[in-house]
C-alpha cells in the first residue's frame, strides 16, 4: 500500500490549479476529499478507521491531520450507526461524507440508507435535504475475505431517492467525487477497489460534463457497456478485438442512477449490437435494466439481443475462484461472438 500523504501528493504534483497530473485512483480520491473539505466548511468525513489510520485503503490519508478531528473522525464499529448519524448531521446542516469500510458492510446500514437517507427529503417535503455522499469501496478482484467483494449497484439503483455513481479511472474518480460531494442529494459513490493503485492522468481543471455516461473508445461494430473496474477490462477486450478488425465502442456508464439512456441508445443505434458487462450476479442485476433500456430505444436497429456477461448467480467466491467468477476476457469475447454471429432464425 502507498505511503503517500496529502502533503507528498501536493509536492509531487507541484501543480497550480489546472495542470494535468499522474495519480493513482487512491490519490485522486484523497485529493478530491481534501479539496472538498477545504472548500466546504460543512463537509465532514467519518467512518471506521477513517481518521487516524486514514482508512484501510488510505483514501482519507492525512486528512485528519490537516483538517482536524472535528472534520475527519473515527466512529465506533457500527454501520447503521454511521449512516443513521449521517442523517442527523445532514439535518443539522452538514454535508456528511461517511465511509463504509467494504461493500458487504453496507448491508447492516441498508435500513438507514433505504428508509431514511433516501426518503427524508421526500418525507419532509424538501425541507430536510440529505446531501450525503456515501463512499463504498466496491466490487471484487483483490482476493479479499468474504463480503469484501460485493457489487451492490442493482440494489442501490432500485431505491427511489438515491443517486449512484462509480468512477473507472483516476480522472473520473477525482471529478465525480468532487461533483458528488457537492450535490444536495444523497449519492452512493462506489469505488472500484481493485483500481485504487492504478495510475492515470488527471486533468484537474477540466473534468468535462460530470453527468451521464462517457464514450471511452469509439467503434462501429458493437457497444460494450460497463462501469467501475469492468471498464478497464472492456478497454482491453476492445484492443484485442481490434486486432481481428472488430471496432468496439466502450461506454463507461458512470452514473448507475440516473442511467443515461440517451447515450446508450445513441451508441447502439450506431453499432446495432450491445454487450453489457458487470461483476454482480446475473439475475436482477443492473445489466437487465441497461439491456432493456437499449432494447426499448433501439428495437428497430438491433441486430441481436443484448448480451449480458456478468458474475454468476452464486455467492462471491474466495480468491482462488474469483477469476472464474468475474467476467474475464474470454467470457466477454464469447459474448461478442454470440452477438456478432446472431442470425435471425
Amino acid at each position, binding site marked *: 500500500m502507498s505511503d503517500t500523504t496529502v502533503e507528498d501528493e501536493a509536492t509531487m504534483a507541484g501543480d497550480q490549479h489546472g495542470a494535468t497530473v499522474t495519480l493513482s485512483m487512491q490519490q485522486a480520491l484523497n485529493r478530491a476529499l481534501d479539496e472538498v473539505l477545504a472548500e466546504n466548511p460543512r463537509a*465532514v468525513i467519518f467512518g471506521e478507521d477513517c481518521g487516524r489510520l486514514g482508512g484501510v485503503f488510505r483514501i482519507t490519508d492525512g486528512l485528519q491531520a490537516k483538517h482536524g478531528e472535528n472534520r475527519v473522525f473515527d466512529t*465506533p464499529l*457500527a454501520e447503521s450507526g454511521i449512516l443513521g*448519524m449521517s442523517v*442527523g448531521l445532514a*439535518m443539522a446542516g452538514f454535508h456528511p461524507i461517511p465511509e463504509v469500510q467494504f461493500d458487504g458492510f453496507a448491508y447492516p446500514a441498508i435500513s438507514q440508507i433505504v428508509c431514511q437517507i433516501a426518503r427524508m427529503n421526500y418525507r419532509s417535503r424538501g*425541507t430536510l435535504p440529505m446531501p450525503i455522499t456515501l463512499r463504498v469501496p466496491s466490487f471484487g478482484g483483490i482476493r479479499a475475505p468474504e463480503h469484501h467483494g460485493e457489487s451492490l449497484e442493482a440494489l442501490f439503483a432500485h431505491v427511489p431517492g438515491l443517486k449512484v455513481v462509480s468512477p473507472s479511472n483516476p480522472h473520473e474518480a477525482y471529478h465525480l467525487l468532487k461533483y458528488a460531494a457537492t450535490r444536495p442529494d444523497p449519492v452512493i459513490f462506489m469505488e472500484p477497489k481493485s483500481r485504487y493503485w492504478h495510475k492515470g492522468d488527471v486533468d484537474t481543471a477540466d473534468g468535462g460534463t460530470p453527468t451521464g455516461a462517457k464514450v471511452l473508445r469509439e467503434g462501429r461494430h458493437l457497444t460494450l457497456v460497463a462501469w467501475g473496474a469492468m471498464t478497464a477490462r472492456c478497454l482491453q477486450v476492445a484492443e484485442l478485438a481490434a486486432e481481428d478488425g472488430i471496432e468496439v465502442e466502450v461506454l463507461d456508464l458512470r452514473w448507475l442512477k440516473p442511467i443515461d439512456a440517451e447515450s446508450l441508445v445513441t451508441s447502439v443505434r450506431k453499432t446495432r449490437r450491445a454487450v453489457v458487462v458487470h461483476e454482480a450476479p446475473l439475475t436482477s442485476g443492473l445489466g437487465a435494466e441497461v439491456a432493456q433500456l437499449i432494447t426499448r430505444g433501439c428495437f428497430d436497429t438491433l441486430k441481436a439481443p443484448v448480451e449480458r456477461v456478468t458474475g454468476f448467480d452464486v455467492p462471491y467466491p474466495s480468491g482462488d475462484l474469483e477469476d472464474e467468477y468475474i467476467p474475464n476476457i474470454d467470457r466477454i469475447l464469447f459474448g461478442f461472438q454470440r452477438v456478432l454471429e446472431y442470425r435471425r432464425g
Partner: protein
Amino acid sequence: MDTLPLPDDGDTARPTPEHLRELYSLMAAVRHLDLSAVAWQRQGIIPGYAPELGQEAAQVGSGYAVDTSRDFVFPTYREMGVARTMGVSMVEYMSTHKATWHGGLYDPVKSRLAPIQAVVAGSVLHAVGWAHGQTLDGSDAVAMTYLGDGASSQGDVHEAMNFAAVMKAPVVFFVQNNGWAISVPTERQVAGGSVAARAAGYGIPALQVDGNDVVAVLAATRRAFAHCRSGNGPVVIEAMTYRRGPHSTSDDPGRYRSLDEERDGAGEDPLHRFRQQLQADGVADEEFFAQAQASAAAEAEKIREGLEALGPRPGNEMFGLVFQETTPALQSQAVSWREESEHV
C-alpha cells in the same frame, strides 16, 4: 433509579401555578384530540390512528421542557401530545393519519419536530447525529428522541447510545415504557426489566420516572436538558406509563390482555390524577377545568374541520419532492403519469 448528577445551573424550580394550569390545559387538549381521533377513524374521516391514551403526562411533561428556539425533537408515530405541546399545527400533524403525507405536512425545520417516524427506533441515531452537529458547531442545543419499550430491542438503539456516549453528544433518550409493544408485554421484551438500567453499561446517567406524573416528567426532562446543555453528554429517561388503548385503531387488545389486566396495569388516569392534585393544591378550580375542557373540545372541532377540508396532495408531488435536483427519468415518468392518469 436516578443516576443523573444534580445540575448546577438547570431550572429545577417547581412550575408556577400558571405553568401548572398550562400543563393541565395541554393534557386536556391532547386527551380530547386523542379520543376524537379514534372516533374520527370509526366515522371514516381518517383511515387509521395510533392513540396515546394514558401517555399524556409523559408526552406533555417532556415536550414542555423543549426550547423550540434551539432544541430539536425526534418523535415516533405516537407523539401527538409532544407535537401539540411544542405548538405544531395539529391539522398538519394529523394529516399523516389521514394518509395525506407520510411524516405529516408540518414543516419540521420551523417546528423543531422531525417528521413522524414509522420505523421503530428509526430516528434515535438521527438525534445522535444532530446532537453531535451541535457539538461541532459549539451550540448548546439539545436533541430529544422518543422511543418505546419495544423499540429498545432494536440494534439501532444500542448503536445510538454507544455513539452518543463515546461522542458525549447532547441527546436525551426519552423512553416511554408503556408496558406493551403491540401484543408483547415489557417482561417478554426488555430483558432485565428496565431500559434505563442499560444506560449504566455505557456510562450514561439515567432516570426512571413516574410517567403518569406530569410534573415529575417535566422536572426529569429539564434536569436532563440542563445536563446535556452543559456539555456532559447524553441522558436516558424512562417514563413508566401505560398504553391504555389499542396499539392502533386496527388492533384488538382483547386478544392478548384482559380488561382486568388492563385496569391493574394502567393504574390511575394521569389526567384525572393531575386534576385532583391541582384541586387539592388550590391551583385550579372547577371553572378552570370546565374552561379547559371547553377549549379542548373547540380545538378538536376545528382540527376536524381542517382535516375534512384537507384534500389529497397533487400527484406531481410524488415526483417533484424526491430530490433537490430532479433527474431526466423522474421528469419523463412525471410526464407519462400526467398523460396516463390525468389524461392531459
